[in-house]
């Protein structure tokens, strides 16, 4: 049995909701010991739905159950003096600290990097916030939607006739967490050779705006047009999401002539192999005419075939195509199932279910997915066994609302 990649590393997770917890979930998956430090009433993510069987029990929040797999859970009131002292004890032998409070909160608590660095110079402290710890918008309120919007992804998504839309889920926060994860891994590699810790300031706005990397120059130097493309792109056919007999299929036209010929043959329309269909004309009127002709041919054929028929036949011919899968389809997709992406996790309150597992398959040091901790589940282990607080100390801390 090989050791996991981050075995022996200690991580303190002050994260709430998504960004911080997702980052530390990945660190836990790689074998780090992650101690999630919750306020005595718990991470607020425990109280937002959906819940297991819609039962609003703080141990049954799905967001919490997913984002905190493999962590140990303790409670601690950082606003109390005892809480601060205990926290500083924990910082002494931690490699990584992750927090995603509003900028300034850690400083107000007297737990900013300058203070903690003195306790543990090797600490890698990471702050994730909406806009970063500096700059004119530092204290602006944000939501996932407003970050995706300001970051530039929303304007290009949706239908031209309607308002722009954001991506499904909470992607600004997930990207914030993933950027933090990657930055921390780089910092750990650096610490491993230099012994030095450091402070990392992650702005979720920047995480989103950096996704525009690929598009910048075609805009600035070449006047490329970026408008909302809807389900299908208006200037090329086929490109996008199409209705077929029993659902939606994604089709993409590649530049390869051979692939276009395969497409024509798949539809049983060899006449589309003619050179005039191979490339889209640059004259807009000619293009529209040609696209209408291709679309008319294609729509009849689409309505006669199921998603699965098109997918299998297309793939056997090397044509880029994919079913528009919903979440249920993902759970039934042979590729995901047979690769072992889903892992069964049992939780004492929530029960058993198949969770999404390793984000990537490391063959030498596989990622593992544990379960999320109960509120304060590891208080004994951490305070009593590790830090040496007596049972009486702990009782007093409990009485005073510290844990």
């Amino acid at each position, binding site marked *: 049995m090989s050791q996991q990649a981050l075995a022996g590393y200690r991580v303190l997770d002050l994260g709430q909701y998504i960004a911080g917890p997702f980052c530390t979930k990945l660190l836990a998956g790689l074998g780090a010991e992650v101690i999630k430090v919750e306020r005595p009433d718990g991470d607020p993510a425990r109280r937002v739905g959906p819940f*297991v069987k819609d039962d609003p029990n703080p141990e049954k929040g799905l967001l919490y159950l997913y984002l905190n797999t493999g962590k140990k859970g303790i409670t601690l009131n950082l606003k109390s003096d005892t809480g601060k002292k205990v926290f500083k004890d924990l910082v002494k032998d931690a490699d990584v600290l992750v927090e995603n409070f509003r900028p300034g909160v850690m400083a107000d608590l007297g737990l900013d990097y300058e203070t903690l660095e003195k306790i543990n110079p090797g600490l890698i402290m990471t702050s994730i916030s909406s806009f970063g710890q500096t700059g004119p918008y530092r204290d*602006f309120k944000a939501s996932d939607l407003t970050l995706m919007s300001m970051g530039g992804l929303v304007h290009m998504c949706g239908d031209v006739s309607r308002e722009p839309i954001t991506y499904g889920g909470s992607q600004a926060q997930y990207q914030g967490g993933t950027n933090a994860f990657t930055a921390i891994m780089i910092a750990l590699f650096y610490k491993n050779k230099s012994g030095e810790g450091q402070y990392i300031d992650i702005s979720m706005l920047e995480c989103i705006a950096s996704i525009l990397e690929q598009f910048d120059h075609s805009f600035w130097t070449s006047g490329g047009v970026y408008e909302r493309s809807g389900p299908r792109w208006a200037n090329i056919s086929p490109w996008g999401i199409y209705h077929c007999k029993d659902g939606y299929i994604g089709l993409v036209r590649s530049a390869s002539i051979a692939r276009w010929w395969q497409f024509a043959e798949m539809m049983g329309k060899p006449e589309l192999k003619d050179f005039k269909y191979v490339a889209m004309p640059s004259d807009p009127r000619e293009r529209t005419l040609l696209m209408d002709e291709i679309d008319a041919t294609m729509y009849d054929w689409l309505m006669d075939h199921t998603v699965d028929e098109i997918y299998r036949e297309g793939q056997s011919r090397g044509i880029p195509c994919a079913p528009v899968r919903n979440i249920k389809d993902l759970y039934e997709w042979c590729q995901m199932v047979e690769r072992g992406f889903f892992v069964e996790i049992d939780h004492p309150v929530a029960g058993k279910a198949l969770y999404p597992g390793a984000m990537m398959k490391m063959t030498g040091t596989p990622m593992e997915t544990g379960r999320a901790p109960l509120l304060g589940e590891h208080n004994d282990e951490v305070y009593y066994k590790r830090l040496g607080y007596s049972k009486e100390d702990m009782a007093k801390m409990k009485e005073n609302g510290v844990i």
Partner: protein
Amino acid sequence: MAKKALEGIRVIEHGMYWTVPHACQIMANMGAEVIKVESIQYYDPVRMYLNPRALGMIEGTQWAYREQGEHPWNRSNYYNDGNLGKLSLTLDLTGPKGKELYKKLVQKSDVVLANMSAGVMDSWGLSYDVLKEVNPGIIMVLAPAYGVEGPESDYVAFGANQWQASGFASITGYPDLGPMQASINYGDPGAGLPIVGFVMAALLHRERTGKGQFIDVSQAETMGSYIGEMMLDYAFNGRIAGLTANRHPYLAPQGVYPCRGEEEWIAITIGSEEEWQAFCNAMKNPEWTKEERFSDNASRMKNHDELDRLIGEWTGGWVREEIMYILERLGIAAAVVTRLPEVLGNPQLHARGFHRWVTHPETGTLPHPNITSWKMSKTQGEPRGPSPCLGEHNEHVLCDILGIPKEELAILEEEKYIGTEPLPGADGIGPKWSREA
């Protein structure tokens, strides 16, 4: 002067399009020496790629300033945006001399990454099993469409297909119009970024044990990790997340609303009862805000369509920025819906030095977002230089790193193993030059 976290790490990239090039650019920003291996027989297709979604079919827009120049493959916007600070080696891996030189390079490297179709490296006789014989510490990452293992590992998918296949299309769209295609291949950077984290994990493991390893990446699994709570809602409750446009899962109102002007939008989220009251005040408390159907979060969730229409009437009279600053002053989340060219002028991004200016020998000086914008107090990452011209660093890599005599370069060039100008068919469209022919 910031230190370079990955100084001394040598990375071999067989990247195309975006995923692996993105991962490798991050490592280059952090100080790794990234050698991008292409060949004059087959280069990264984006060197000549007409990105159809981005370009609106305007002639020539794949090239900087719409000028093809003498070396169009060095002027590609897409390529030059995504390969900053790397070295370019052209080496034909289909011939014996190419393989031999490549193995020498692997001996002196730490990581190999590729996102070609599964099986391409195998077909060159350069599978992980072969490379690990050459260098047991080598870390190899393969990121074909849906991963290396599994019944559909040889399937083809473009970025747009990943969006469809991974569930994202089914949760992005309007309830009445169906699923939407994202304009950006979100899954590419979405996988490229964490690949770097996993490579670091493998490097740490190697430092401890001397052993390398193989990492198998499926973009669909990475994407699936970004919607975990929805996955669990199905696993526990059998509920299938659907299309909700801009709605928040449990707060109302939230939406994108029209402002004065054309294609001007503001995104707003009301996060609490206090914020709702403040929002009503900002709108000067029109009668409808006092109606029973908007009296609490639950009723607002229920009557969201009507609420959106009424809010839109108010926002329509204002300039985007006015609303943003009015609402932010009241502690309400509001943001302009930024159009692509406006990102460069965003005050917050500007204040934090998000864009970096880089000079390319053939296309001049242009701004790039710093994809490693994280403010790291000891090892700040940033672009180290421009994206390389095709084969620009052949001599450096072959002579300085591998130590082959300079005279041999001419022979390799003669035999079409290396070069700086592509051969016919290198764009993957027409018939190919072949070593056997």
